[in-house]
Each structure stands twice: as C-alpha cells, then as structure tokens.
C-alpha cells in the first residue's frame, strides 16, 4: 500500500514526465560534443606524431639533373647527422603516388618531371638540428629543401585546437545546464512540497529521510534520461562514423573512438546522474536546515 518511501509524491506531478527527456537532451548534447572533441583530438594526435618522426628532403627536378647523383651526395650527409635514424630515397613510383592527390593522375602519366624525395626518419629526443641540416644539404646539392611538414599543418592544428576548445566549452556549458536544471527541479519540488516537507519535519522525520525522497527521484530521473540520451548519442556517433568512413575523406577527422573514449562517453549519463544526486542532496539539506 505504501509505495516505497515516497511520502511526497514527487513523481505524481504531470510535469515530471517531461523531465527525463530534458535530461536525455542534456546527455545527448554533452555526449556529441565530447565525441566530436575526442575524435578531433585523436586526429590531431595522429597528425602530430605521424609528422614528428619524419622529415622529407626534396630535390627539385632541375637541381637533380644539374648535379648528377644528388642522392649519392645527400644520403651520406643525412646518415652522419646526429638524430637521424634512417634516410631512404624514394623511387619514382612512390614519389608519383605521393604527388598524385595534388597533381592528378593524368598529369603524372604525362612527362612531368618529378622531384626526387628522401624520406628521413628522425629521433625526437633530441632531434636533429634541422636548420644546420638544411644548410649542409643545400651546400651539397643547390636547391635541396628540407620539409618538416610542420609549417603547413601547424595552422590547421591551431584551428582544430580552437574548435576543440569550443567543444570543451560546450561540454562544460552543458554540464552547467545539467546543474541548473537539477537545481531548478529540486527547488521547484521544494516549493511545491514545502508544506509536506514541513509536515514530515514536524512529525519527527530525520533530515535524511526527507532528503532521500528527493534524491531517489533525482537518481531515477538521471538514470532514465541518461539511458535515453546515451542511446541517442551512440546511434548518432556510429552513424557519423559510418558516413565519414563511407566518404573516406582522409583530410577530415574520422569519428573513430577507442575503448577509453567510449568509456568516457558512457560516463556522461553517470556524471549527469551524480550531478543530479549531489545537487539535490545539497539543496534539500540546505532547505531543511532552515526549519528549527
């Protein structure tokens, strides 16, 4: 006959049926932002480490022709340089493959003269002194350039990092929204049930007894809304991931998340629920302390 411990019928309120959906939307937005942030972060990470270890030495076609055996002059210099782990001249086919995205297959099929490229693997700690290396190499073969790929990507990475910052701001904002929403719900509950709370208090109920009624509701709410929001998030992320994969645009970050990142995503609803519980607990006890 007594339905659990709910003397206050917090769930009888018709408005309350809407609440899980509000929570679900908060979880969804937070989850999506987090997923975007993490996949951007992962992409940047990939570019970063992918580039850190390699340097490309480029000999323009004219320069290569002018000084016969450019490779033979350059490779020994490279191998002697401190911090260089390996240096390998690329064949014509490899070079063509690398340039294809820029110049088009047909252009390469024609008799476009290709530069000669050397793929250099460098240690990172300590790395080679690239300026000195570049000077040494162009002294040996005039026109030789050292490209550590950084300049061209640093700008991109800076932009992506700023987008990441925005995503993080959104996550924080959404967490804030969760707190504000829970605060609002709890305070509204307190206002609606002020008389009931006072009555329980006057009958000798302990503070914990009253607080638990609100907290239990917050728990149920958080879990229900969190579950809905999580499902939506997973479906969306998976769909985006699939779409990005189908498009196959190597340029763009793919939404592929690791196990840790899926775990972080799973933490969102739990986090929201925890926020809900703690906010509720603090608010209710604060209000109860005002009663004599």
């Amino acid at each position, binding site marked *: *006959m*007594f339905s659990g411990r709910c*003397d*206050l*019928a917090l769930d*009888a309120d018709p408005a309350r049926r809407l609440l899980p959906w509000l929570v679900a939307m908060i979880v969804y937005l937070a989850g999506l932002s987090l997923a975007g942030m993490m996949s951007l972060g992962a992409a940047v990470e990939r570019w970063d480490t992918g580039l850190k270890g390699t340097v490309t030495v480029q000999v323009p076609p004219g320069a290569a022709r002018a000084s016969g055996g450019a490779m033979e002059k350059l490779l020994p210099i490279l191998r002697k340089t401190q911090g260089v782990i390996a240096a390998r001249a690329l064949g014509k086919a490899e070079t063509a493959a690398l340039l294809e995205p820029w110049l088009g297959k047909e252009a390469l099929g024609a008799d476009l003269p290709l530069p000669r490229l050397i793929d250099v693997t460098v240690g990172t700690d300590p790395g080679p002194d690239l300026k000195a290396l570049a000077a040494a190499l162009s002294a040996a073969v005039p026109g030789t350039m050292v490209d550590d790929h950084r300049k061209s990507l640093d700008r991109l990475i800076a932009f992506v990092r700023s987008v990441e910052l925005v995503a993080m701001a959104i996550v924080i904002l959404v967490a804030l929204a969760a707190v504000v929403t829970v605060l609002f719900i709890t305070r509204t509950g307190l206002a609606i049930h002020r*008389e*009931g709370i*006072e*009555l*329980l*208090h*006057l*009958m*000798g*109920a*302990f*503070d914990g*007894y009253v607080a638990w009624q609100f907290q239990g509701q917050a728990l149920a709410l958080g879990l229900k809304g969190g579950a809905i929001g999580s499902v939506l998030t997973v479906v969306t992320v998976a769909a985006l991931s699939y779409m990005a994969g189908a498009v196959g645009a190597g340029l763009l970050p793919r939404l592929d998340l690791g196990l840790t990142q899926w775990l972080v995503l799973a933490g969102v609803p739990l986090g929201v629920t925890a926020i809900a519980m703690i906010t509720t607990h603090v608010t209710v006890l604060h209000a109860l302390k005002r009663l*004599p």
Partner: protein
Amino acid sequence: MVRFQNVGMRYGLGSEVLQDINFELPLGSFHFLSGASGAGKSSLLKLIYLAHRPSHGLITLFGCDVTIAKRRELALIRRRIGVVFQDFRLLGHLSVIENVALPLKIKGENWDRISAYAAELLAWVGLQDCIDASPLTLSGGQQQRVAIARAVISKPEILLADEPTGNVDDAIALRLLYLFEELNRHGTTVLIATHNENLMDRFDHPRLHLAGGELSGPFGGSSRPAETL
C-alpha cells in the same frame, strides 16, 4: 512534561506575540487553551511542538531544554508529540489511511502492524467508508477528523489540538473530545486550543486563557502553578 519559564516569542522582527509566559503542564493533565482570535494560541502550540523557537526564556519538554538540544534529539522529541493543526495539513496525494499512518511510518514501523490500528481509529471518528479516498475529496469536517486520527495514532505523550472541532457539528465534537479524554486516561497530556465556549462548558477541565500576549489560568491542573517552581 511541558514547562515554560519567562518565554517570549515573536515572528521575524515583529513585536512580541507572547510575552513572559510561565506555566507547566504536568504528566497526564488536560487543559483547554482559550483566547480571542489572534491572541496567540496557535503560536503557543507552535512553541511546544517545536515549529518555532522562543525569542527568550526556557522551554523544557520531557525534562529536556529544547534550546540546547541537538537536531536529532529534537526530531525524537517531536515523535512523542501529536498535533492536530488548525489547517489540517493533510497530504493530498496519499490516501486517508496513509495519511493517518504517516507518524508510524516515519518511526520506521511495519505497515502490517500499522494498518489494522489505523482502520480502527478511522472507524472511531466515523470515516470507515473513506479509508482509501484522497483527503482532497473529503468534506471539511471529514478532513478535520482525519487530522485528529493522525495526531493520536502514535499514542503520543503530549497531544496538542488547535481548534479541532471548528468544522464538525456538536455531536461529533463531543465524540472527539471523548477520544481525547480516553487518551488522557491512558496517560497522555492534552492541551486543546478552542473558541467553542459551549464545548468547554461541558467538560470540567482547567482553562488557560491568553490575552495581550500573557497567559492566565489555573496552571498545572492538579499540580502547583509554574510561578512557584
């Protein structure tokens, strides 16, 4: 049981509603509390059931000074006091019997042990047909009787009733007072605030009278007046 020494009370920053109240309710006494509307009867009861703190003076309940008692002790004291509120204060979303059983539930008692007794009590106040209704669907007098049943179900050591017969006819009022007397015979200390002169005339219990914030009357019933303590 209940002892007030030089107790004053005010709401917020207003002037004192009660000034220098001194009295004692001995164990097992039965008093009426009278006074004009706005004289401070409900305020005095609030001090006893610990809904409000005195602005000065000493209140002792069950031998315990309430100004220095801890929060948990206060809760335990409240459980030994039954109150019929002037405005009933029933919870609309619970059924009548759940409302009545609430004090026992808060004490953590088992529902099965509670329910038979609650039903019996509701029959006594003439509400056997409304057990599972919501209090919101009851008439004024029926609600008042539910409030009374709730106040007495935990067999409190002190029973405070604020205008408990304002919405019922004289026959039911008499019946309710017999219920209070029955409790009193079993040891409950009873204090009833009322305007109903007729009713007070029918019972031979001492009357405390509030006027101008001061209390007068034959304090203590069968015991010494509080002033001489």
